[in-house]
């Protein structure tokens, strides 16, 4: 459990954007692992199994949670959800755009925080693609949405993430007149 708990927790935390929920999900993942302990003990793919189960349980949790709390959670969220404040900040995407004089640990914390700030319909596909290395088609299947929508959501999520990071000073921003 020691070897995998950070991986399982990270998967759940990045997808949910909520540490308390991620801890509950991680607990469920390890309880399921215990049920299959005999198979997993000798398996070389235990890590992959745990990651898959963590992703599946998190997505199940999110879909249940979304149905239950749709009104509360998505009150302000629609497809035009970019902050007006961010509209004026265009991140610089050149290879040396990442500000070097920020401590790596601090930069990592800011990136995690920025992920949490993304709306769920942006964060989930982005994390599945960039952190879980899932192909577009698999993400579309998992989330039961069309392939073009997944691509659009991920593209918007990347832009929103880059803008948040530009605002926090992690990447260079060029001010553009909107």
């Amino acid at each position: 459990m020691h070897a995998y708990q950070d991986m399982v927790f990270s998967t759940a935390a990045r997808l949910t954007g909520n540490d308390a929920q991620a801890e509950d999900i991680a607990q469920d993942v390890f309880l399921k692992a215990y049920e299959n302990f005999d198979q997993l003990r000798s398996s070389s793919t235990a890590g992959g199994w745990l990651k898959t189960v963590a992703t599946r349980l998190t997505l199940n949790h999110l879909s249940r949670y979304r149905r239950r709390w749709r009104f509360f959670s998505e009150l302000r969220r629609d497809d035009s959800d970019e902050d007006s404040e961010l509209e004026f900040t265009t991140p610089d995407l050149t290879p040396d755009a990442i500000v070097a004089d920020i401590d790596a640990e601090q930069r990592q914390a800011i990136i995690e925080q920025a992920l949490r700030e993304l709306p769920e319909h942006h964060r989930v596909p982005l994390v599945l693609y960039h952190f879980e290395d899932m192909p577009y088609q698999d993400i579309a299947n998992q989330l039961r949405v069309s392939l073009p929508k997944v691509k659009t959501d991920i593209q918007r999520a990347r832009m929103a993430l880059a803008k948040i990071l530009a605002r926090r000073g992690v990447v260079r921003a060029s001010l553009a007149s909107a």
Partner: protein
Amino acid sequence: MSNGPEKLESFVDQLVRGQPLRRAPATLEARVLAQLALQHAPIPWWRRGFTHWPLTARVAFLIASYGFVRLAIAGVMSIITFVGSREVAETAVSWAHVGTTAVSATVSLCSLIVSAIPPLWLYGAAVCGFALYALLFGLGTVAYRTLYVQR
């Protein structure tokens, strides 16, 4: 400067590539172990199915059930006998009359009060109640979003 999709994708890739795993809370392992201990704790016989009960408990339960059924039947029979007598029936009728009189008097009083209140007040009270309900709902939403979702 144009931020093309491929450029943006490789930029985000570059950003997250070195991102380390989040550290799991220290409480996670203890929680899992506690849950496992709970799942594997022996369940007492009275929380299991009847077929898993000890023989003496099963026999005692059947005897107690038989006694309870006998008692219930005897109780119902005695109530039927009691209600069947004339005095009891008359008493019941008089109590029913008192009850209906009290209810009708209360209804008359309420309708008198309502008719005495100006309709504008009633509409105002309804609007006020609805506004308070909406306010409470809004406060609940804000509290949820602030205290729970942002956690």
